[in-house]
C-alpha cells in the first residue's frame, strides 16, 4: 500500500518536474523517498519536503557549488537510468558502489561504508552466523542489490535459496513470520527495521562491506570532481559526521573509514576487482526459467479465471437475488481495486490467517482478479445468445443444465473468444506484478539482469522478445479457432 502511494508520488513528481531551465542556479538531484530514513524520506511535517542524510549531503554539494538543491523523486532501481537519461545531475539514495557502475558513470568518492549483515530469528542466533550456515534456507533481500548478488553467489557455493523483494520492509516481517530464515541487507536498513518492528536479531559480524556513492552521468567528470572536493572538505570539517550522527548512523567504523578516505586521496576503495562481467549466454538459463514461471503462473491463473468467471457469470444469470448481489459485489470490488493491492493483501495481509506460498498467492491473486473480468465477458456473451435458441433447445426436451452446456455455453464461448484472448495476453504481462510478492518472473529477472550488466538494451530486447514469443502463438491459435468457428 505504501509502495502504491510512493508510486503515485513518483508519477506526480515526474509530471511536475520543471523543464530544463535555470541549470546554473539549481543542482538537480534524484532519489527515492520510498527508501525512507535515514537516506531519503518525506518529512512527516510536510510530505512535500524530503529529509535524510542523503538529502543533507545533496544540500552540502549544492551549497559548495553555489546552487540550490532541487529534488526529483524516482524509483530506487531506476535512479541510475534516470541519471543516464539526464533527468537530473546527480543520483543519491544509498546507491551502492559497484565495478559496473564505475564503467558507465562518473562516481563520487564513497562517502559511507555499510556492512551487509544477516538478520535471523532470535532462536537461530547461534545457528545462522554466516551464509555458509544457511544451506537450503530461504534468505531474503532487496532485488537488484549487492546483497542479492551475494546471495546468488551463495546459492552456487552454499546452496542458499535467494528470495528477492521489491521493498526492504517485507523481508523482515516475513522473517518474523517464518517465511524466511534470514535477511541479508545493509546494516543501516537492518537497524531501522529492528527499530520499527522487533522479533529478530542482527548478527554482529559483517558478511561483506559496501559503500554509498553519488552517481553522475558520464561526461560530468568535472562536476563529480568538484563534488569530491566538497565531500572531502565536509569530511574534514566534521559536517558529514554531524549529519551521520543526526541520522543515527555514526559509529567507530564509520569514523575509521572516513579517516581513511581523507588519508587516501585516490579513494580507490570502491574499485575493487570486478566480478566477471556476465554475458548474455550466462543469463539465458535464468531468463528461460523466469519465462517458464511467467508462462506457468499466467496459464494457471487464466484457468482459474475462466473457471471462476464461468461460475460467477452463471450465478449472476441463473442465481437468486442474494447470490446475484454477492457475486456483483465480488466483481465490483475486485475490478475496482488494483491487482497490486490484492496481491499484497493475499500475501502479506492474510499472512496472520493463512500463510500462502508466494507462487500460490500469485496464481490466486491474478486468477481471482481476472475471474471478475472474465465473468463479465461471459455474462455479456451468454446474454447475447438469442432467446429463441434457448426455447428451441427446451422444446427438444433438454434440461436447463443441458441447454446451458450444449447450446448456450458453446455459442457464448465463441463470442467470448476474442475478448478472452485479449485478457490472456494482458494477464501474461500483468503477471510481472507478482514480483512484489517475491516471485522472480520474467520482468523481475530482466531487471536483475539489467542491473547486473548495467544496461537495459540487451535484457530489454530479450525480455520483449520472450513475451512476444509467448503471446503471438496465443493470438494465432485464437484466430485459427475463430476462423474455424466462424463458418459455424
Amino acid at each position, binding site marked *: 500500500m505504501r509502495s502504491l502511494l510512493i508510486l503515485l508520488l513518483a508519477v506526480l513528481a515526474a509530471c511536475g518536474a520543471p523543464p530544463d531551465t535555470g541549470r546554473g542556479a539549481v543542482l538537480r538531484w534524484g532519489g527515492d523517498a520510498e527508501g525512507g530514513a535515514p537516506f531519503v524520506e518525506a518529512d512527516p511535517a510536510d510530505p512535500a519536503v524530503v529529509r535524510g542524510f542523503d538529502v543533507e549531503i545533496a544540500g552540502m554539494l549544492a551549497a559548495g557549488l553555489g546552487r540550490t538543491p532541487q529534488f526529483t523523486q524516482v524509483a530506487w532501481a531506476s535512479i541510475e537510468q534516470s541519471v543516464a537519461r539526464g533527468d537530473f545531475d546527480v543520483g543519491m539514495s544509498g546507491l551502492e558502489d559497484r565495478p559496473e557502475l564505475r564503467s558507465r558513470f562518473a562516481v563520487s568518492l564513497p562517502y559511507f561504508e555499510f556492512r551487509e549483515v544477516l538478520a535471523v530469528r532470535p532462536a537461530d542466533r547461534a545457528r545462522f552466523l554466516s551464509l555458509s550456515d544457511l544451506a537450503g534456507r530461504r534468505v531474503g533481500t532487496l532485488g537488484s542489490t549487492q546483497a542479492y548478488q551475494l546471495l546468488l553467489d551463495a546459492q552456487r557455493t552454499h546452496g542458499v535459496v535467494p528470495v528477492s523483494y521489491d521493498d526492504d520492509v517485507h523481508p523482515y516481517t516475513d522473517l518474523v513470520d517464518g517465511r524466511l530464515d534470514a535477511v541479508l541487507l545493509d546494516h543501516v536498513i537492518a537497524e531501522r527495521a529492528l527499530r520499527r518492528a522487533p522479533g529478530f536479531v542482527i548478527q554482529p559480524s559483517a558478511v561483506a562491506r559496501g559503500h554509498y556513492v553519488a552517481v553522475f552521468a558520464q561526461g560530468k567528470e568535472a562536476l563529480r570532481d568538484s563534488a569530491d572536493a566538497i565531500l572531502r572538505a565536509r569530511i574534514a570539517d566534521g559536517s558529514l559526521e554531524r549529519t551521520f550522527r543526526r541520522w543515527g548512523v555514526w559509529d567507530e567504523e564509520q569514523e575509521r573509514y572516513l579517516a581513511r578516505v581523507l588519508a587516501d586521496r585516490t579513494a580507490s576503495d570502491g574499485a575493487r576487482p570486478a566480478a566477471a562481467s556476465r554475458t548474455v549466454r550466462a543469463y539465458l538459463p535464468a531468463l528461460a526459467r523466469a519465462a517458464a514461471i511467467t508462462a506457468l503462473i499466467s496459464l494457471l491463473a487464466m484457468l482459474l479465471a475462466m473457471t471462476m468467471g464461468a461460475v460467477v457469470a452463471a450465478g449472476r444469470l441463473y442465481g437468486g437475488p442474494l447470490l446475484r448481489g454477492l457475486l456483483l459485489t465480488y466483481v465490483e470490488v475486485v475490478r475496482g481495486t488494483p491487482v497490486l493491492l490484492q496481491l499484497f493483501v493475499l500475501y502479506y495481509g492474510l499472512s496472520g490467517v493463512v500463510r500462502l506460498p508466494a507462487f500460490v498467492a500469485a496464481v490466486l491473486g491474478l486468477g481471482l482478479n481476472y475471474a471478475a473480468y472474465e465473468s463479465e465477458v461471459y455474462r455479456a456473451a451468454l446474454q447475447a445468445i438469442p432467446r*429463441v*435458441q434457448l426455447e428451441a433447445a427446451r422444446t*427438444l*426436451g*433438454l*434440461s436447463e443444465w*443441458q441447454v446451458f452446456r450444449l447450446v448456450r455455453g458453446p*455459442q457464448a464461448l465463441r463470442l467470448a473468444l476474442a475478448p478472452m484472448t485479449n485478457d490472456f495476453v494482458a494477464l501474461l504481462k500483468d503477471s510481472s506484478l507478482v514480483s512484489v510478492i517475491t516471485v522472480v518472473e520474467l520482468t523481475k529477472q530482466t531487471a536483475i539482469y539489467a542491473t547486473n550488466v548495467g544496461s537495459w538494451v540487451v535484457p530489454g530486447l530479450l525480455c520483449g522478445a520472450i513475451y512476444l514469443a509467448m503471446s503471438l502463438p496465443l493470438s494465432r491459435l485464437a484466430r485459427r479457432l475463430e476462423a474455424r468457428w466462424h463458418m*459455424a
Partner: protein
Amino acid sequence: MSRSVALQIEGLRLSRARQEVLRGVDLVVPAGDVWALMGVSGAGKSTVLRAAVALDAFDAGRIVVDGEVLLPGRLPAESRLRALRRRIGMVFQQHALFPHLTARENVMLAPIHAAGVDPTQAQARADTLLASLGVAHRSEAYPGQLSGGEAQRVAIARALALDPHVLLMDEPTAALDPARRGALADTLRRLAGEGRALLITTHDIEFARTVADRVAVLAEGVVVECGPAREVLESPTHSATRELLRHSLDEPPVA
C-alpha cells in the same frame, strides 16, 4: 370421428402485459390431419403454438398432447415436461437451428441428450430423417451455410427426431419462394399421412388451401370460424375471415 385426437386445446385463455390475447381458444386436431391456424398479424396464432409446447404459461383452459395434460398456472419444471416434449415438436419461424452444430448434430442432439439414445443409432436415425427430407447431402453443413429452404428442412428433421405425434410449425412459408412451397406442402402431407397431427400458422391462403384439411381462423382471441379448408376459404361466414381473404388478394404474402 374414428381417428384419435392428437392435440386438444380447450378454452385456452392467456394474457400478456395485462392484455388478454387468447380468450378461450378451442381446437381439436386429430392424428393424420393438417390444420392451418390463420388470422391477421397479432391475432395470437404463435401464442397458441407457444402455449402448446409449454414455452408460455396460460391462465385458463387445458391442453392435451397425445394424452399428456398441460394445466393453467406456472409452467412445470422441465423434468416434468419430458413426456410432453417427446410427443410434440416445434419448427420455429426462423428455424432456430444451433449455429455451432452441423445439420446432422442438430438432429442428433435431442435423441442423445434428452432421450439417451446411443449415438450410433441417433446418427442413423438422423441420416434417415435428413434423407427423407431431401437434405442428406447437407448433413455436414453448418446452419450458416444452408439456404432458407434447406435450413427449414433440417429444422423439421430436428423437430421429428424423437418421433412426436404432433408437429407445430410457425409461418413455414414466410421465408420460402413460391416454387418451394409446393414441395413443402408435399412434405407436410406425407408427415400427416404417417399418422401425425400438424398444426401450422400461416398468412398464405394458397398454401393453406393446398396443404390443410381444416382451417381455423383466429380473431379477437377466439376461433371465429373452423371447417374444411375449401369451405372456409371459398365461402367465409365470418367478417374476420373475409378481411383476411381481402388482404391476401391486395398484397403479396408476407415474405
